[in-house]
């Protein structure tokens, strides 16, 4: 039919445009990074003295270590708390309490990162500063990131736990297994893939998070020696410097954006593969 063909054509054009947006983003990042990737030595990103863009030294390693440490810390705190929350909702809590707690977590998933950052800045940073100055530190970044990724881990883990087939529970109780015995021996292994995929996605979110970390981490370019040292992450560095960066400096910032995007893409591809494997 005529109208069907016209409509399909229009829809195809729309979808093609959506694909083009992805290509456009990638090409523009590459295009803007090009002068740094070809003009400067790549080894400089690893071996330059430090990050002094005005003097032409562009060592990205301190920022990379800051980014990774903050994300790893957040995952180490957030994964057990998130998993415990999910177990509480699915197995331990009475029905109305489980629903209430779930709503609370969903509500938190909707709070914007700038509000987490603001709360961290006005509440957490002064608290940490009383204990170990200066306050704005790797620890503050880890804590704020933990709060931000916890809802995500909880919601994905809940989905994975509820997807465990009913008959596994019946078999476990027929064998006389205790509640934790059932969870540790039967449910968690069955839901492992889904839970891991959720944690990987949360890690991707933590790596790319900008505002909340920018507000609480102190933003000093250095390899942190303790949890109380201020750090600067790759994303925060971009947010801080793009406004005035020129020439090579700007180009290097785009390189770090590209690096961030690739890191996140690898992680989300891993999560996607895991989820696909689980469905089979």
């Amino acid at each position, binding site marked *: *039919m005529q*109208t*069907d063909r016209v409509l*399909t054509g229009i*829809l*195809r*054009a*729309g*979808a093609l445009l*959506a*694909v083009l947006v*992805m290509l456009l*983003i990638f090409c*523009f*990042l590459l295009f*803007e990074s090009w002068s740094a990737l070809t003009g400067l030595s790549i080894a400089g990103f690893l071996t330059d003295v430090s990050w002094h863009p005005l003097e032409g030294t562009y060592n990205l390693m301190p920022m990379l270590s800051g980014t990774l440490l903050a994300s790893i810390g957040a995952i180490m705190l957030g994964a*057990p*708390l998130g998993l*415990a*929350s999910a177990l*509480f909702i699915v197995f*331990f809590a009475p029905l109305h309490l489980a629903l209430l*707690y779930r709503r*609370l977590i*969903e*509500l*938190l998933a*909707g*709070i*914007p990162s*700038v*509000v987490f*950052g*603001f*709360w961290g*800045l*006005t*509440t957490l940073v002064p608290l940490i500063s009383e204990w170990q100055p200066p306050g704005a530190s790797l620890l503050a970044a880890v804590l704020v990131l933990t709060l931000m990724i916890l809802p995500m881990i909880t919601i994905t883990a809940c989905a994975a736990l509820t997807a465990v087939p009913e008959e596994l529970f019946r078999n476990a109780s027929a064998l006389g297994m*205790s*509640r*934790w*015995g059932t969870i540790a021996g039967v449910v968690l292994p069955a839901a492992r893939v889904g839970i891991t995929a959720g944690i990987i996605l949360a890690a991707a979110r933590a790596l*790319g998070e*900008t*505002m909340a970390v*920018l*507000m609480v981490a102190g933003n000093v370019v250095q390899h942190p020696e303790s949890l109380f040292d201020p750090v600067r992450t790759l*994303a925060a560095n*971009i*947010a801080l410097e*793009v*406004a005035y960066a020129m020439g090579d400096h700007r180009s290097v*910032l*785009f390189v770090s*954006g590209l690096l*961030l*995007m690739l890191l*996140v*893409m690898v992680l*989300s591809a891993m999560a996607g593969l895991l989820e696909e494997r689980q469905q089979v």
Partner: protein
Amino acid sequence: MLLRAKQQIRDGVIQGLIYLAVLLVSLVFFWMLFDLAHGGAAHLSWQFLTESPIDAGRAGGIASILVSTALILLVALTASVPLAWATAVLLAEFVPAESAFGKIVRFSLYVLAGVPSIVFGLFGNAFFSIYLELGFSILSGGLTLACMLLPILTSTAEAGLRAVPDTYRSSAAALGLSRTVALTHLILPAAAPTLAAGLLIGIGRALAETAALLFTSGYVDRMPGSLLDSGRALALHIFDLSMNVPGGDNPAYASALVLVSLLLCINILAMKLAYGLQRKKIMT
């Protein structure tokens, strides 16, 4: 019997730990919400919503900020909704799930969904602000957000369309309706609540966004005169007040309270729509 007792102790300890974790999480979250409500309510008033910021936001209100936010949102939705829903209809209704074209589109949206917002900001700055010479403007900020919203709007709409039972499609075909008519008269109306829920989720995402707007829509807190003016979004206003304006904490609290309450309403409405649909499906 000893084993059984040991198991009971272990189960009890673990249950205690889980309850402790939940208690800790709830306490921290209530602490945060209480802080926001407490700090914000003191400064929040009708004037705060209807006056423009004075003295970098220390005094006055957020009227111009709210207008800029609404305009950025409007641009973002106008640009992304038609594109996203066209893509969703194509993926759900016209292209087999396993076709190469469908796979490519779905893959690129999946990649797009994972891109950190600061990277969208970089792209928006390079492409919209500088290459297309839109400068720091509401238009470039809105278009950058539109790119960010594409994957979320498409995936929610596609899921909504796929939830429409196939009997609708076969009945329409049996009646000799064209697919276009079936789509506009049957499938889209049936999927309308999920489309609306997806739209609300997208709006929530856009309102919460800061990093992508930092160097696309800019910092200017004046009332915008046109779409080519720079305009400061509400989330950015909170950031600027707390980081760059000494003595800006009180208005920042109030702005945060406004933003969080707005998002809360939007999310609750979206959940209502989505759950309502589920209930209807169970009952019929």
